[in-house]
């Protein structure tokens, strides 16, 4: 009963988390991305464009985007074990995140990668 009286005020337990945007945590670190595409594929141009638009808006110049054609650099494709293309990999900062698709789902891209 004593315990119950102690918890009567819900305000005691009401922790308020301060939401810090991810980019602030990694503020001084540069974002490194790798985008695996097939140049001949219809999704190639689309994904590059989408990448640029999103990164320019959210990361300004604080990023580096490496575009890799899977047929030109098969060793890298095998090393990273890329099955579906386009695939965008966030190499740095860790953790590594992989996004598959033409990145048209902007909201999800931003959520998974940046914020």
């Amino acid at each position, binding site marked *: 009963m004593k315990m119950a009286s102690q918890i009567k005020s819900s305000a005691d337990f009401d922790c308020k988390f301060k939401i810090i945007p991810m980019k602030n945590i990694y503020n001084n670190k540069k974002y490194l991305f790798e985008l695996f595409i097939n140049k001949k594929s219809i999704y190639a141009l689309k994904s590059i464009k989408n990448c640029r638009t999103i990164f320019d808006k959210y990361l300004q110049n604080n990023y580096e985007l490496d575009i890799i054609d899977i047929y030109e650099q098969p060793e890298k494709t095998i090393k990273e*074990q890329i099955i579906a293309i386009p695939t965008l990999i966030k190499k740095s900062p860790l953790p590594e995140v992989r996004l598959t698709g033409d990145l048209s789902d902007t909201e999800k891209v931003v959520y998974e990668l940046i914020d």
Partner: protein
Amino acid sequence: MKTETKITLEQVVPEINISKKKLEKTPTGIKGFDEITYGGIPKNRPTILVGGSGTGKTFMSMEYIINGAMIFNEPGLFMTFEERIEDLIVNALTIGHDLEKLISEKKIFLDHLNINNNEIHEVGKYNIDGLFVILDQAIQKVNAKRIVLDSFDTLFSNFDTRILRSEFKRLFLWLKEKKVTAIITAETGDTFLTRLGLEENVADCVIELNNRLNNQIGTRRIRIVKYRGAFHSNNEYPFTIDEKGMTVFPVINQSIDFKIVNEKISSGLKSLDEMLENKGFYLGSSILISGTAGTGKSSMSMIFVNSVCKNNLSCLFCAFEESPNQIIRNMELIGIDLMPLINSNKLKFYHAIPTLLNLELHFMAIKEEIEKTKPAIIILDPVSNLITEGPNSDIRIMLTQFIWYLKTKKLTVMFTAAITLNSISLNQNDEGISSTVDTWIMLQDVDFFNKRINTLEVKKSRGMSHSKLKKEIKISSNGITLLPLVVKENGVQLHSINISESKQQNAYQYKSDDLNENGKSD
């Protein structure tokens, strides 16, 4: 128009070289499998191998690759998405294949594609060109002609099936263009054949594996669901996996018109031979000795064995009830000494507890023993003990196929079974077993006052005019003797030897042996 009425054997059973003209096939080298597909899986086309977990998908596909490298000189690529390469090498060693050696000889390339699906997030449309790049590189490494992708479900478990449908088609077309013969494994699904429910539409050949449990004994089975552009057997075939690899059972023999032998072999009992045209059984035929417990089935078969071995033929006795030592002791009581036969290697025993293995494995083991010792006669004592091993329809199919196998090998086989007229009326399958054999000898016990008499009759014997008489069978220390029965007007069967007894009762009459012999009498 002239109509073709004559159907040749080739039309019924297509020969391999007929279908070869239409569609090239890649032999898998798996025992029995190439027979049921008339040559293997379609060449340069993808085949889907579907089955639940633990049905042997990986095992079968691994054997396909190993056989390709070792027997057919076709390099292979094994791409796994599930197991680690080290594990695969260890697994292959258990069936006696040194994968590491084959890898170093550039005959096989193992690749493990680690799919960590948790890291993949879908953001828009995509295709699977990356897989093509990876596969292409791997194919080039050994110039692979055979490919295995194990398994599809792991590879695409987190992908959107709507996008995958078109991508599957592309993958299959790509594999065809690459001119590789691929096996792709997939899990069995609930509503569709495969879990993803789309591969079977685009595949040229679909093979299903399953592992069913019946009366506590599991049986692996294989079925060809679909095979574009070729004949195939529609049946489900049992198969086994052991240290020698995968074996589909039974091995179908293409030829039905095997040679028939007209020679005969004595049953070991002169009086029984007399009932069978004075000669005995046909060589290469199947003989069933049925009867209730204690009517002398085993003794009958042992007398046959004894006479066969004395004619310098070898014999394989498969005992499922008694141990060899027990048989030897028991046979001494009826005056048969088996030891010299065993010592001269004429008589071999195969004995096993029926419940130890399932039926296919028993037959496999017996077949192996046959290949090794090459006997002329095989005794299965009793075959009804094996019936407990599975549903009765199963054993019937199995037995029929086993008999066919023995017939093509020109072996004489003798079964004993606890089948009686009563059991047939209770269990239709018993009659089924008896209809598959050539000669059926039935032993029965008849109650006569307070005495039990064992009788013998030849129920059927294909290709000869056998006696229709019932005889009394008497087992003593001198062996087995057959005695004629006497029938009185009112139809009561009489124990012929006890003339004194019958004279005492003064109710029966005795007729001479000669009159009743061979059914010549009235």
